[in-house]
């Protein structure tokens, strides 16, 4: 850098020369990289940066235009300056959201954490259990596999509506079945945690097949010789599971847990369709709450961007933390 300021000539000549040499040598690589960089810039970096920028303004649907024009059906158009045109507001949006003045950020965050942790724990636990069961030689194995993957094949909104109906307070099958064993019908959607329970159950039902298939794949890549050797050494099934299956599944598990966490965290349709955020918005998670706050009624673009940036930040912090934990355990990923 100092050489450049002291004697600009080599820098000016040097860089183009270097570039030209590089181009001469690797022109094909350059030519192939450029479209990708362009596409990424247009599809990802521009919206991302634009989103950041909008979150520092107070842009909404109503104030995004500097002037509003009214056309008359008889011809003619009157334009007048928008008295409330948008402006830069600094960190106001973040202050409003984080202080709870607008929306219910902290309640949504708490809901999201419960939703994600419980969901992923059950996905992984049940998926692992089913994968172990199905990995053994048994009759009708193919049939079981098909049946267990079925929830995955049904479109999510269909399952959501089905479960919502099952939990219906008056007409639902679940309350009817509770009635058979003498339990009073439960008003599932009347309180925060029973309502959340219905959504979590739906999500578990939907998410287990993926975990099962992924873990089954992982198990089949573990060498049979290891099990045979362990059996000869007299290891019990539980010991074999702990000493061979679990460590062998580790790379797969880490990936699917990370994926599952991000997916569940951002899982929109289940909450939106099953509980609808009821009662009174108390089961809203970050993505659904942000959607309602920003897009129901007047569209508040700046608020939506603010939520977007906050959600992205939470997920970034999580993945950085997760990677660090993995690295500490010697996983190169």
């Amino acid at each position, binding site marked *: 850098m100092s050489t450049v300021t002291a004697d600009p000539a080599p820098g000016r000549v040097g860089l183009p020369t270097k570039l030209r040499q590089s181009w001469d040598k690797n022109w094909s690589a350059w030519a192939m990289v450029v479209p990708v960089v362009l596409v990424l810039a247009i599809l990802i970096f521009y919206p991302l940066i634009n989103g950041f920028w909008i979150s520092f303004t107070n842009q909404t*649907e109503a104030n995004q235009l500097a002037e509003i*024009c009214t056309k*008359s059906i008889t011809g003619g158009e009157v334009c007048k300056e928008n008295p409330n045109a948008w402006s830069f507001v600094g960190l106001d949006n973040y202050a409003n959201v984080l202080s709870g003045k607008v929306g219910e950020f902290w309640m949504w965050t708490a809901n999201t954490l419960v939703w994600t942790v419980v969901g992923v724990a059950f996905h992984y636990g049940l998926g692992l259990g089913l994968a172990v069961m199905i990995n053994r030689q048994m009759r009708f194995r193919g049939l079981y596999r098909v049946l267990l993957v079925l929830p995955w094949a049904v479109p999510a909104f269909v399952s959501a509506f089905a479960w919502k109906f099952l939990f219906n307070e008056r*007409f639902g099958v679940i309350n009817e079945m509770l009635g058979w064993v003498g339990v009073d019908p439960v*008003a599932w*959607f009347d309180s925060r945690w029973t309502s959340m329970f219905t959504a979590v159950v739906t999500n578990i039902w939907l998410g287990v097949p993926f975990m099962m298939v992924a873990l089954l794949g992982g198990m089949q890549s573990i060498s049979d010789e290891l099990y045979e050797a362990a059996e000869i050494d007299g290891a019990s099934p539980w010991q074999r599971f702990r000493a061979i299956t679990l460590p062998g599944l580790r790379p797969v598990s880490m990936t699917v847990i990370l994926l599952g966490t991000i997916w569940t965290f951002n899982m929109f349709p289940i909450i939106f369709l099953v509980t*609808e955020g009821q*009662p*009174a918005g108390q089961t809203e998670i970050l993505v659904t709450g942000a959607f309602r706050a920003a897009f129901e*009624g007047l569209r508040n673009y700046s608020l939506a961007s603010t939520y977007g940036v906050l959600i992205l930040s939470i997920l970034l912090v999580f993945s950085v933390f997760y990677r660090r934990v993995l690295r500490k355990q010697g996983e190169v990923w």
Partner: protein
Amino acid sequence: MRRINKGLAALTSVALAFTIAACGEEKSGSTETKAADPASLSAELTWWDTSDAKNEGPAFQELIANFNKTYPNVKINYQSVPFAEAQNKFKTAAAAKTGAPDILRAEVAWVPEFASLGYLYSLDGSELLADESDYLAAPMASTKFDGKTYGVPQVTDSLALLYNKELVQKAGVEVPKTWAELKTAAQAVKQKTGVDGLYVNAAGYFTLPFMYGEGGDLVDTAGKKIVVNSEQNVAGLKVAKDLIDSGASVKPSATDGYGTMMTLFKEKKVAFIINGPWEVNNIKSAPGFGGVENLGVAPVPAGSAKAGAPIGGHDYVIWSGVPQEKAAAAVAFVKFLNSAESQAFLAEKLGLLPTRKSAYDVASVKSNAVVSAFKPVAEAAVSRPWIPEGGQFFGPLDQMATEVLIQNKDAKASLDAVANKYKAEVVPSYATN
């Protein structure tokens, strides 16, 4: 000579009569001048109908067929768009300046919002407003924003007390006029027939009759003040809460409350509900209900101040992105759809309440039991705040209704939270209590 004179006089008088008739016709609607040759009007128009596709849609399609008898070269692309999606869909399309329908059936609260965003044609000076005085004042008010008119009212409605005549008769009770009377009537129904008396839907719009009944309101647009957390509204909610706590009303559910209410009413499992004329056709065709003969309609019961229900309904609006060449066709279509005859047709078919005074004079409307039952209801309806933010009042209000009526939270505290939300998110320039 005399004969000739006579003949001439007769001729002149006939000619005179013709001219007068022609003049009269010209005066009655300037369309007639253009309609001299409706076939010359040629365009393709898209119409988003937000009415119920199954119960109401066919009647509107019949109207289009009638329209095409006079205007064979105006093709109408009829698209049924679910009411719940139409607002967002229209805004997305209008903001993108492409894909919005030429004509939209917009809910009354949407009109000022769309107009403030520049998405609608102002109709001032067009023949659509030539006979503006024929429209009822309350629904007409919803089409105005900032001194201009952006739509014509298609249908007006309001909430009323709907009841199952058979059950009410069996219980031997009078049709209630106050909330207190409703409470005793509902309890009597439950005692005598074993069927639930009342279903109070825990949603914002449906709590308004309770609030209006005590003299409350949401905001004071003239004084630019948020009054949603007033004493009157607290008192109104207590009335509603008492109906539920005393067992007069079924305990409402937090999701699908509206659907549950309708299912129970149609299956004769509840005697009284509070709902609007838009469900009449649905109730009428429900198997086992007993048809429209069994449906009773009364104004919403009164609180300590008055009986008040919110005004609702829909307006026809024209998207501002429609090219000027198509404007004449769009105007002709809306004019036809909203003529007194068409309104009378819809009233007869669907029980929709006309917005034209002249439509109420049509014989078939006059003799329609449902329409005449709803007419006083609509006339007494309380106007809502016609500001662009009007539609956003209901989100916080819905939450409040769930909290108070289902979760037993304190009405005052919940209403205070609504007021804070209005101040922070909906109308920041308004003063709070």
